């Protein structure tokens, strides 16, 4: 079918991905692109145990995700690709060359980041990286759950006061 979502989410596989997006989009598989998880069997078991049995998780580092991207597109099921950070997604986008849409689903607070949305906090370098992705022709928007407002990348580039809550 297709990849329904290319998502940046520092929690990787969690409730919003599996249930919030996974159920309404009838997702059959998730490609978890993370160089660290891809080489750790125990981490993979951790994520595998949380998803329903009818949902497959494919673990990949960036190079193998680039190599296998066509097979994801040709899968008969609908899928989600999730990466933990902007750098990982950017390397995937640049390696594949045909990804035209990236969803910023959750980049939470840590030292050096400033608030952009209640669920998006960025360093200046990260904001610049998103801007460069956008300038390269990739539509970058933020949206944590399917019925939330889609925020354009231009709004993410401006630091603002934090909203109340993040799921």
């Amino acid at each position, binding site marked *: 079918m297709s990849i329904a979502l290319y998502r940046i989410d520092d929690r990787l596989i*969690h*409730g919003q*991905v599996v249930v919030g997006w996974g159920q309404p989009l009838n997702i059959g598989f998730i490609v978890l692109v993370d160089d660290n998880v891809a080489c750790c069997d125990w981490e993979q078991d*951790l994520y595998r145990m949380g998803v329903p*049995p009818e949902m497959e998780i494919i673990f990949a580092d960036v190079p193998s995700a680039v190599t296998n991207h066509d097979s994801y597109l040709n899968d008969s099921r609908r899928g989600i690709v999730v990466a933990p950070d902007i750098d990982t997604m950017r390397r995937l986008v640049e390696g594949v060359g045909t990804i035209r849409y990236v969803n910023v689903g959750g980049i939470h*607070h840590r030292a050096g980041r400033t608030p952009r949305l209640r669920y998006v906090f960025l360093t200046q370098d990260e904001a610049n990286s998103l801007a460069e992705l956008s300038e390269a022709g990739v539509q970058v928007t933020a949206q944590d759950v399917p019925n939330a407002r889609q925020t354009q990348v231009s709004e993410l580039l401006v630091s603002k006061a934090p909203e109340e*809550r993040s799921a």
Partner: protein
Amino acid sequence: MTSNEDDSTETKHAPRAIVAGHGSLPEGLVNAVDCISGRGSDFLVISNFGLTGGDIEDRLRAAASEFDVRVFFTDLPAGSATIAVRRMMRTDSNLVLVTGANLSTLLEFVFQSDVDPAEGARTAAEKGRGTLVAFGDAAPKPTPASGDG
């Protein structure tokens, strides 16, 4: 945690478990436990609001350590709190996790105060599972279990 009922006779209990999960659900569940049993203080509450997976794990570890708690209740099997506790269990085999916890689960747990918390958690999980029932002729016949994520 306060009770809506007879505050003058309320007895505080040392926390025996942590309830963690999405949004205000942990707080709401424990508030409901308190309204019904006066035993809300059996639980510590941690929400995943605005936290990275690592931050959630740090908070859970800190709370468990401070109060010597080794039982955790979470809401979703695929939730970030569940993942965090599972990660903690990698290095601590004494921890017990009940995921998919509901109000009945927590109520059963607080009334298992005379047993080891780990044993009480296992009993509570069974009781909680048994309270999930669909009533009504229009309710479709159940299909084989298919995890909820």
